[in-house]
């Protein structure tokens, strides 16, 4: 299986982007007998949007949770801005996390807080020293970016799924992160809303100049947002390349993802 790793490496594409900021090599993670990540390797360069494709439950979410240190990995190396995640202290990890925006599958808005408080929450730790007006301005600016400025005092329970996604996106953008990690951003949304969200992600990527990893099995979203795709099958980086390159591949496992289009 090992020879299958990095099936296609797009050497010319890489030059368009900056230095690698996330380097994943031979990552292994298992929960008991369930070997989720077997030997996964991927490198993300600055300014790059990488979509990780894979079936549900194949360990895509585990991968990005490893990146922010939510789940410790068993073996291999995972470097973010050159820092090995498993070796750094909590303090440094927190500083690193401030540079990473994480959009959760379920939006993960804090139910007990208003939209404003949700957005301010991240500033508690990382935005110290900001005055009340600065915070308010930042919150409003970010909400305006996702088009939900009117919902600032609303409780999350009153929001629709699409709005929750937007708020979740706004919340992870408020610290102006360098890396965005999206966990299934379009899952559970109707196609139109899903497209809106994909466009919004792209827009934000341009506005904030972020690099992203987008976990998805939504091909429309992938088509729209990805500079590069990685197909995760059985816990390894089965295939890698641009959308069109992968589409043209003859491998039936890869082809299966494109059949629905």
């Amino acid at each position: 299986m090992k020879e299958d790793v990095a099936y296609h490496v797009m050497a010319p594409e890489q030059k368009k982007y900056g230095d690698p900021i996330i380097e994943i090599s031979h990552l292994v993670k298992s929960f008991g007998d369930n070997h989720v990540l077997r030997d996964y390797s991927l490198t993300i360069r600055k300014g790059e949007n990488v979509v990780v494709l894979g079936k549900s439950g194949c360990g895509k979410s585990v991968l990005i949770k490893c990146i922010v240190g939510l789940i410790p990995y068993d073996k291999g190396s995972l470097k973010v801005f050159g820092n090995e995640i498993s070796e750094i202290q909590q303090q440094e990890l927190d500083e690193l996390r401030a540079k990473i925006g994480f959009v959760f599958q379920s939006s993960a808005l804090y139910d007990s807080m208003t939209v404003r408080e949700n957005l301010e929450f991240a500033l508690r730790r990382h935005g110290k020293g900001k005055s009340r007006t600065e915070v308010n301005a930042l919150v409003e600016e970010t909400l305006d970016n996702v088009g939900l400025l009117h919902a600032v005092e609303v409780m999350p329970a009153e929001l629709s799924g699409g709005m929750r996604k937007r708020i979740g996106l706004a919340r992870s953008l408020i610290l102006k992160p360098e890396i965005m990690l999206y966990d299934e951003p379009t899952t559970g949304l109707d196609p139109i809303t899903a497209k809106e969200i994909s466009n919004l992600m792209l827009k934000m990527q341009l506005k904030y100049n972020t690099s992203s990893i987008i976990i998805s099995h939504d091909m429309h979203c992938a088509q729209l947002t990805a500079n590069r795709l990685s197909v995760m099958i059985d816990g390894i980086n089965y295939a890698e390349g641009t959308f069109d390159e992968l589409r043209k591949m003859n491998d039936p496992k890869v082809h299966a993802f494109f059949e629905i289009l």
Partner: protein
Amino acid sequence: MAEEKKSILPKGLRDFYIEAGETTQFAGRFFREILFPPYEFREVIRQSYEIGYKSLPLVGITAFIIGLVLTLQSRPTLVSFGAEAWLPAMVGVSIIREIGPVITALICAGKIGSSIGAELGSMKVTEQIDAMEVSGTNPFKYIVVSRIVSTTLMIPVLVVIGDAISLYGAFLAVKVKGAVSFTLFFHQVFEALNFGDALPSVIKSFFFGFAIGLIGCYKGYHSKKGTEGVGRSANSAVVVSSLLIFIIDLMAVQITEFFGLI
């Protein structure tokens, strides 16, 4: 997620030991986390309001009824002994020593324990806890420590206020049946009480509060995925913390007896 091994213990017992061990570990983590900054004072106050102040109506009504009913029920027995004059003393001692703290704690285990279990369970399921961690806030400190501190501090306050309301209920019950002045009633109650009655009951309330918070948080924090897991967390939080309240109560009796306070 340890490797599944064949165990000589039956599954139920094994699960019990695992849970007991994990709860102890959880409590240990609480004490480690509470020692070091940052301290989430604002969250403690917010939770105290939710846990303490908002439980007051329920605790108050329950306490009032218990005081009233206990007095009315004890009365015939004492009357048949010709010891009706002892009614305030007897009711006072029972309320302060035992019924006040235990009833309040059980009510709170039902109300607060379940809400903490469900809230944390759904936070876990909807990745809010992960989101907090990613945003640089220690979720254990922010969610767990603040809640356990709040329950530990608020249950005793609820117990004291509940006791006072309960005694007032008892006073009304005595007054309905016979002429007794407010002063006489409370004089007789306090005549019968000593520090050995009042202080252990307040001290054990802190432990009741700690147990309610700890179990609620543990059950919620370790909730299984899915909505069913949330329900189960809330349910088992109530069951386990109620049971723990009685166990603590039993231990408290033995300890106070050991120190000769009975």
